[in-house]
């Protein structure tokens, strides 16, 4: 499978003779369309990325020029830094638990809120509010309160007769779950994307299916789900990339604690780079993360040919 297959192909009649001329014209036109992106890439992205790659082979404390140390940072990461391995483990668990749950809720609510319910617009706005609260001080305080030893969660559980409860957020075994819940709570963005996608599915398809006698379940499975797959794919890829890089919630709610139970990768990277002024080491960590993300994204792309249905001719 080539990279070429990852991107779509347009469908129009290709007459033999005119093919090369037309292809050349289209080639040129495409590059014109891409000119802003190329420029942005060149000016703002490529240079800094190369610089950070260079830093990853140096010891760089920001306060004095970088010093070349070759693979020293990479060796240190994998052989001399237990906290790094902890960060890897913590982040993997977080990604593979929170992303599926978050997407499931997002899809479920999107479906629910695409019906012609009363005040559906208002509901959508309400369900988006958590995503607006992002890295606010309010979340930092409230999440600790809600899941603390005297928090609402424990009070509610107490009503059901559950006693002897610990704090959820400051005990290593359960701290991660509170951050997973925070991620899921902020499902507004993928939900919105699903709503937009659902709205694009032609009603006629449902109408004709209904006429043919299909019930709601099979309508969902045969029409909605397949047509939504490009967006499910998009959300999956981007939520995965995003949660590998999650940072703010861990920083403000738990700061990696208790006892490194929530030491997310990017948080640890940030602490090393900006807190301890070890930008070389942090850069190396960033590039390793990028490779990890690339691997998983590529895997997702590879599987996509089996379950994603585009309408521009592929599969």
């Amino acid at each position, binding site marked *: 499978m080539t990279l070429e297959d990852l991107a779509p192909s347009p469908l129009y009649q290709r007459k033999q003779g005119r093919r090369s001329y037309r292809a050349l014209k289209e080639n040129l036109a495409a590059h014109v369309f891409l000119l802003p992106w190329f420029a942005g890439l060149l000016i703002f992205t490529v240079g800094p990325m190369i610089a950070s790659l260079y830093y990853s082979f140096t010891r760089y404390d920001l*306060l004095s020029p970088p010093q070349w140390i070759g693979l020293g940072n990479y060796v240190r990461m994998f052989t001399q830094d237990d906290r790094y391995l902890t960060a890897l483990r913590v982040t993997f668990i977080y990604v593979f638990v929170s992303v599926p749950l978050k997407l499931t809720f997002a899809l479920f609510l999107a479906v629910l809120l695409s019906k012609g319910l009363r005040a559906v617009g208002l509901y959508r706005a309400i369900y988006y509010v958590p995503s607006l609260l992002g890295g606010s001080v309010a979340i930092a*305080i409230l999440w600790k309160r809600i899941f603390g*030893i005297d928090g609402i969660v424990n009070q509610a559980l107490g009503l059901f007769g559950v006693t002897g409860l610990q*704090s959820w957020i400051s005990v290593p075994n359960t701290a991660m779950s509170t951050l997973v819940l925070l991620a899921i709570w902020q499902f507004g963005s993928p939900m919105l994307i699903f709503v937009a996608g659902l709205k694009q599915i032609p009603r006629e398809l449902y109408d004709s299916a209904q006429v043919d006698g299909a019930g709601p379940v099979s309508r969902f499975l045969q029409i909605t789900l397949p047509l939504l797959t490009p967006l499910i794919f998009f959300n999956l890829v981007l939520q995965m990339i995003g949660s590998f890089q999650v940072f703010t919630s861990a920083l403000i709610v738990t700061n990696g604690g*208790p*006892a490194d139970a*929530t030491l997310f990768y990017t948080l640890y990277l940030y602490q090393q780079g900006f*807190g301890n*002024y070890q930008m070389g080491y942090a850069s190396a960590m960033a590039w390793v993360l990028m490779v990890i993300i690339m691997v998983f994204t590529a895997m997702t792309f590879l599987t996509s040919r089996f379950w994603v249905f585009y309408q521009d001719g592929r599969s």
Partner: protein
Amino acid sequence: MQTTLKRREFLRAGTAALVGSSVLGLVSCGSTNSGTPGSTPLKLEFWGTTERDKRTRQVISLFEQSHPQVKITSQFTDFNSYWVKLGTEISGGNEPDLLQMDMSYLAQFTQRGLLLDLTKDIPDPINLTDFDQVLLKGSEANNTVYGVPLGGNYQATFYRTDLLTKAGVGDPDPNMTWDQFATYTTKIAKALGQGVWGTDDGSNNGIIFEVFLRQRGKEAYTSDGQINYSKQDLVDWWTYWDDMRKSGACLPASLGAGAPTTNTTNPPDSPLLTGKSVFHFDWSNLIVAWQKFSPTKLAMTVFPQTAGSQMGHYFKCSQMMSISSRTKHTAEAASFLNFTINDPGAIKALDIERGIPGAATAKTILKPQLTAVQQEELAYIDLVSQYARPKAVLDPPAAGQVATAFMLYASKIAFGQISIPAGADQFLADAQKLLKKA
């Protein structure tokens, strides 16, 4: 944008400054009094909150009044973001002229030659003759002055007087030993019942550990930046607190040593203020911030002592103002430093929000404007200074990372993830690695 209130304020303060300066003759007025106003721009950066910003801006206005050719722009952010921004600026060659400096970063910054050696600027324009010498000495690196201390504080214990009354015990005796402290807090915890503990867990607190070490006659680090304590010291320390946890005298792991510490944990949601703990360890100048959020009265006392030992407390420079070694305006910057610590108007503006000022006249100048809480802070300073002796060794550059490791191992021990001896071994191994790298 200036409001009328501000104008009135600085007019009032400005008058006071003029009166003060004519009496004390300390303010160097317009030594470079040539050229148009604003011809010398200085950039100042510091960390803090809006409270500190207001005061700092007042000082700047006062200074600009008497030095019209200098224009200082100031910026601030929270402590953690400050170092992120400063590091980025330095790497881009855009550091500010005046920067607030913390003792934990001093070694690193001076080793990299980023701070101006102020030796030749003393005593003119920076007059330190009536300045607290203990504070000054404690802020030096390699016996050289790299910044003027803006304030000093001592380690302190805050406690809930109302809970002590409720428990039926008297106030703590400053001479109380660690063992007596254990008994004392166990009694309190038992009296107050379920859900309340006698004290915060100090096992993860490098500050108290350092005081404890100094009571044993050793500084935390050697003069060449190595760990100066033994595994036994660590084991003694962590065992003490482990016993306290087991007896219920101090907070359990999830509330104390293991609890996540973020910028927004303290003070409002802290165990002290939510009534879960009676004693809390912190810095003396923060009593104001803590009392603000506490509906009940907080009192202060010293750390527990070690019988027949040396004094453990020390007067710490809470923050200082340094000059970048790459500044183009040394004279003006130094002049500003002198103004900040010696000018009565500036002293009044800064109050004791950054800590106890070093100028000998400060206490007299500030006395009329101190609140009740602040007066208590001063009273505490008098008390604790009897239990203090100067700190002899500056923390090496990697000390912050060692402190993080210390907290991590303490919390792992508190959660039972690792035994105390193993924790001590691993911590010492990690610490040595960290110190070697720097």
